[in-house]
């Protein structure tokens, strides 16, 4: 079973990215179950950033690889259309998830007599004003808890499609992206929501992390500073994070000794707008990771790595399932909060996520094989007319890199 699943991992890809993307997805699942003991071991306990930053940086990296290269080969319009098509896939997935999750939470709230679920997840409006709620949900303007991540991803891809030509001049893209980030933070610009004052994950600030990921993918190059210096700075940044988390936040009294401005800053490190400390934290973490894990690291092919890689390669179905499963996990822990249930929820949930990824991988492989067979058959004269064009499910891309592969296969353009 394990061996069969291991074979489903596509090895020609950058496995480091897949591994850490899968790890981030797993952390997102673990952290979304309130009261899960395992959530005391995830990234946000040790760094100022968390799985969201990892996920967005790597999403940008994958997008850079897929659409950035495609743009260099096929031009802006072609690559941007691909990116928009991917955003559409995400949008459809988001709406489906919205319906599933709303049904799950509202039904649970009614069945278990727990109106507070609706309060906490901000689903109240669906009951009190359903007509408008549906419209607002379609406009990504009504975002209950957990349903705020995919909308950000959609908008990030659209911004990326727009800024794509700038990838030819990474410094310019970086500068433009930073300018948008800075303006959004200083002037508090955000997209609107129905009840709140803006998206929980402000796409105008988070785009910077996404673009940096894309730049790293397309123009790795030499680092701007000596490697040793970057090592030291990154380590220092992570140390600062630990001090903030375990000293400053734990003992607010100590901050009396600090200058008031610094103390205020340390207590207002916001996730919504990707606070500069969080940005610095994820960049430091990314730098040290690339220093410690070479692209061909042997452990990436070992036994424990494949479940993460498989999840990372099929991030959309895994993410959507994790939202559903994390609420099931929460209900289970509310029923019984002892060791057996804690272990059951985490092992069962992780196994389910890997199964979803394996299923997606198997389906994709099967679809591609069928498409290749159809194409071969279509090449035989006479058969071509009797067969519809190959558009099996395997042609539906599972993520950004898959999409570029499909595009390559479909267009038959030479690969740069």
């Amino acid at each position: 079973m394990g061996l069969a699943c291991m074979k489903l991992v596509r090895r020609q890809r950058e496995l480091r990215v897949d591994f850490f993307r899968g790890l981030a997805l797993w952390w997102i699942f673990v952290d979304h179950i309130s009261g899960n003991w395992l959530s005391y071991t995830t990234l946000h306990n040790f760094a100022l950033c968390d799985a969201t930053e990892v996920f967005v940086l790597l999403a940008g990296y994958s997008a850079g690889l897929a659409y950035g290269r495609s743009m260099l080969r096929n031009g802006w319009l072609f690559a941007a259309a691909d990116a928009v098509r991917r955003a559409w896939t995400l949008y459809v997935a988001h709406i489906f998830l919205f319906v599933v999750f709303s049904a799950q939470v509202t039904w649970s709230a009614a069945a278990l007599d727990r109106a507070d679920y609706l309060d906490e997840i901000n689903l109240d409006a669906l009951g009190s004003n359903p007509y408008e709620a549906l419209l607002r949900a379609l406009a990504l303007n009504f975002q209950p808890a957990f349903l705020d991540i995919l909308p950000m991803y959609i908008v990030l891809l659209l911004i990326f499609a727009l800024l794509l030509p700038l990838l030819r001049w990474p410094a310019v893209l970086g500068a433009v992206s930073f300018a948008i980030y800075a303006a959004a933070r200083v002037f508090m610009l955000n997209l609107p929501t129905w009840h709140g004052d803006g998206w929980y994950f402000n796409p105008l600030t988070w785009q910077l992390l996404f673009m940096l990921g894309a730049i790293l993918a397309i123009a790795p190059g030499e680092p701007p500073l000596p490697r040793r210096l970057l090592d030291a700075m990154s380590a220092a940044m992570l140390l600062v994070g630990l001090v903030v988390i375990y000293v400053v936040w734990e003992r607010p009294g100590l901050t009396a000794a600090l200058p008031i401005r610094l103390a205020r800053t340390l207590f207002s490190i916001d996730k919504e707008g990707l606070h500069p400390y969080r940005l610095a934290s994820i960049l430091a973490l990314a730098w040290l990771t690339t220093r410690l894990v070479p692209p061909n690291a042997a452990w990436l092919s070992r036994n424990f790595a494949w479940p993460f890689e498989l999840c990372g390669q099929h991030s959309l179905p895994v993410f959507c399932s994790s939202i559903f499963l994390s609420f099931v996990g929460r209900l289970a822990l509310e029923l019984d909060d002892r060791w057996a249930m804690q272990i059951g929820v985490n092992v069962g949930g992780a196994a389910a996520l890997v199964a979803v990824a394996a299923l997606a991988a198997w389906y994709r492989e099967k679809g591609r094989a069928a498409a290749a067979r159809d194409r071969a058959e279509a090449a035989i004269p006479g058969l071509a007319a009797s067969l519809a064009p190959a558009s099996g499910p395997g042609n539906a891309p599972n993520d950004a890199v898959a999409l570029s592969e499909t595009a390559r296969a479909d267009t038959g353009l030479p690969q740069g």
Partner: protein
Amino acid sequence: MKPLKPCHVLALLAVLVAPTLAQADTPAASGCVIPSEFTEATTALPQVATALHPGGTLDILAVGSATVLGPGKSPAADGFPGRAAEALRAARPGIAVQVDVEGSRGISAAEQLDRIREALKRRPYNLVLWQTGTVEAVRNTSPGDFASTLAEGAELVTSAGADLILVDMQFSRFLRANANVDPYEEALQQAGSLPGVVLFHRYELMRSWVAEGRIDLERADRNNRQAVAEQMHVCLGRAIARLVLDGADKQP
């Protein structure tokens, strides 16, 4: 392992017995454990103090979202404001304590402020209990706007001749994990430092109950839920009553 010396045994006993002694001043029968830090008023509550003379009447207005309504059928009696009134009556038998509850699920601080304004137009109160912040944290509205709503409310209440006790968010594991509570807590703390305003730290008190396994609504099973919710409101009410009396006894 070395044999235990008598002094070790004594130390061990002291460690085991000390917590039970420390709890001796709290009503053990109902299981309310309320550390004194939660019932110390940071400022005097002069309007409450004047109402608390023998034969006097303390009029309380309680405004908030779902939790002011309480778990039972009668919001005025079963929610923590009603329980606080009950505890105040028990503590000061000569005084009539009357409470009006204004609230509904999921209303924001701005809507609550409107209700306070309306209620204060209808009749005077000595004390306003204002439970707020959860809806803002869940919806991620601007903490700055929240802070100015609170400041406006504090001004309104004090100029209407009443004291104000702010009650912060309800603790839940879900909120802790998924909502950014800190900026709203900070806004409440700021408002709590205004004259005539005291902040009741419900979030921290409830968190301590959950951590010690005393009152844990999220983990209560369906059959016990009602009983646990009732106990929670009784204990919150008692804590608030102590805070009110502490503020009344303070010299302005």
